[in-house]
């Protein structure tokens, strides 16, 4: 949650309309090197998730050797209390953490942006109701809200995801509302309104396409934070449940056997790499598109 959104109204990408691929390539070239590293790390994890079955890894749930062995040539990150291969478990952990973070961010963006756009564009009662809802939600300290919701729903990654969506949607609602409020005043929108176009259509066609940049930058940054919070919830026993090799719950297993440092080492590095990568990439994107808050 350290990536608190600097609500940056007016930061709008001059949309590269005609040749998006060329635009993308140009944007890539202009990214700072750290952002490229970030993108590469994220890509690596996505590839791991998609191809995990093809890797020559031990079964993450099976006992493959003596328990609590130190890292060795055979077991790169040692074995845990059940004799399972920590390296294999760490890579398999991505299959839990990465897709969940995608889903949480996507849902938070979808719900938050939709409500924020409606609030900003239609104003009035819509605005009041939605924004009061936002106000109450952000009055909760985020981690406590996530903990409370996850605790009440019962442990499990699905419930933890719901808890995280509840924590994150208001950020996107505020972001989108601010964007919509700004874009709504523009000439081409006013022209469309004067032309008598239906308001829903104006919102979708004329306003929304210009509002996405801050949301995307934020979503990139939040991706890592979601991985972090999901692992935190699992760590305190409110997320993934054993034996699934989720990173947070692996660290929690390691924490009780803390002379056997290697049990927690791999998953911790994995979380760090994802969070760092998404911060790098998000930072780079912000530098690129939104010079005001650089």
């Amino acid at each position, binding site marked *: 949650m350290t990536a608190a959104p600097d609500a940056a109204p007016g930061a709008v990408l001059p949309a590269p309309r005609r040749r998006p691929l060329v635009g993308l390539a140009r944007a890539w070239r202009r990214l700072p090197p750290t952002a490229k590293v970030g993108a590469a790390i994220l890509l690596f994890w996505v590839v791991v998730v998609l191809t995990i079955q093809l890797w020559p890894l031990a079964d993450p749930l099976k*006992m493959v050797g003596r328990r609590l062995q130190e890292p060795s040539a055979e077991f790169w990150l040692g074995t845990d*209390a*059940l004799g399972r291969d920590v390296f294999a478990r760490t890579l398999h952990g991505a299959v839990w953490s990465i897709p969940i973070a995608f889903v949480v961010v996507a849902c938070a963006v979808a719900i938050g942006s939709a409500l924020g756009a409606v609030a900003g564009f239609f104003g009035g009662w819509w605005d009041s109701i939605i924004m009061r809802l936002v106000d109450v939600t952000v009055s909760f300290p985020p981690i406590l809200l996530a903990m409370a919701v996850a605790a009440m729903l*019962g*442990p499990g990654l699905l419930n933890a995801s719901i808890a995280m969506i509840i924590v994150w949607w208001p950020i996107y609602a505020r972001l989108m509302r601010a964007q919509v409020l700004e874009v709504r005043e523009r000439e081409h929108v006013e022209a469309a309104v004067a032309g008598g176009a239906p308001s829903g259509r104006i919102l979708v066609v004329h306003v929304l396409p210009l509002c996405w940049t801050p949301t995307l930058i934020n979503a990139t940054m939040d991706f890592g934070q979601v991985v972090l919070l999901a692992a935190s919830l*699992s*760590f*305190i*026993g*409110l997320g993934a*449940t*054993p*034996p699934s090799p989720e990173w947070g*719950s692996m660290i*929690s297993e390691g*924490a*009780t*056997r*803390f*002379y056997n440092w290697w049990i927690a080492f791999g998953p911790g590095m994995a979380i760090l790499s994802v969070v760092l990568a998404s911060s790098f990439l998000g930072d780079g994107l912000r530098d690129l598109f939104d010079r005001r808050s650089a």
Partner: protein
Amino acid sequence: MMHFDTKRGLRALAFAGVAMAAPLTSLPALAQGSDTLVIARSMDVNSLDPQRAFCDTCQFYLTAVYETLVTLAPDNKSLVPNLAERWEVNDDFTEFTFHLKDATFADGSPVEASDVVWSFERLKNLKGSPSFLMDGLVGAEAVDAKTVKVTLEAPNGEFLNKVSAPYGGIVNAEVAMANGAIAGEEAATEDKAEPWFLANSAGSGPYMLKAYSPEAELRLGRNDAYHGEAPGFSEIVVTQISDAVSQAQALETGQVDIAMQIDPDTASSIRSDDVTTEVVPSYNFLYVGFIPGAKGMKDVLTPEVRTALALAIDYEGVLDFTVGGAGARQAAPIPNGFPGTAGLTPRERDLEKAKEMLAAAGAEDLKLVAGYPNDNIYGVDFNIMMQKVQQDFAEAGVELELKPLTWSVWRDELGAGEWGVTAIYYAPDYYGSGQYVSYFGMMEGFPWANRAGVGDSALVRNETEEKLYAQALAASGEEADAIYAKIAEEMMKEAIILPLVSPNLVLAYRSDIEGVRYSACCNLPLAEISRK
């Protein structure tokens, strides 16, 4: 008993224990010669009111602060006088007369029959967790200031054992009443003394409660007015350290004198010469329970299938996996060493026979779900234990899906019959086999019969057990032992409760400490501990 705070993630809470020697600071005060005893443990206190509390920490706290009429000798079998110097029992075990010795409470007032009557009535009427100790109490009356007569509605050959439980401790009635305690029928709703008991004590034991800070520290001070021999320390501090590794560390560096929850694995890594570790068998055990009354399980978990599954488990392997072999197998759900267990033989694995029986029962592609608390108890991680069971079942062609749950969800789903297999644990409250029969017996109205039948206890009812239990309660000595042995065999035949591990207990303490022992009723008798 319960460890609400030991949920898996929470175990990490204090994993690192307390300070090692800290070069940044002056060396912390070491134990030598200190008049304070420091004990490390993960505290599971749910109350410090003797008639409400029900936890492992409560057992040794209450034993140090309150005294019972009779208590369990160090042989963990025989009962010896405590506040009662002698007692008489009528032939059918329904009338018990206790003669009190001259003893005083910490405030100097004498321990009298009226205090005993008051304490027993409150224990019954509060309807707190330990109230089962007074089940069947018709009345307690003070014959004179030093004589109490207790009457039961039905024979109970174990009643003396029951009052030896720490929850049977005698409270200074006058002081307690002055602070809101009530013993009458309305106690369950009107008694307001629980907060007072969290900060004060009113017993006749060698120690008194000095201060309690939940999940941090429990401080006892010496009762200077103690009527018996003065205890070894002026102060005892129980400090919260959640996991075994941290406790071991604190012990090795002399930060604490005793570590109560070191598992055998961790104990073997202790290298310090200043630490003594003793491994003793415990009376605690973890078990798998089948729930034939669960949804869709009625025609699946038949007695034949249950027996086959019991044969599929590699019991030796479970011991190795969970406690590195430092434990014992247990035949029936009555701990080894308790009445009736002497001649029992634990189950052996017989995979071929298990497969045959499963095939004969038409249950080759059996799929089961096990819901269990996601916890670590007595050094055993339920997940590790259940993953071993999962592997063993798989070898017999049975697929077991594991569902580790929080305690609260586990209870919900257990009550709803969501799954056919569970796993949990038990620790004794006093020395006696009756508590096990009245918990695990498949008898009308008793806890596990309701659980296994999910409300329909007829599904699992065993009338032989009911008859035998009535006989056992009306008997004593060897006669009772023989009946309990028969009940144990019945319980094994039912194959509903499968004890898997009775983990050994590690007594770990600084070598200048003496008098540390494990008691079946009272856990760790603090009054016996002293510094050499």
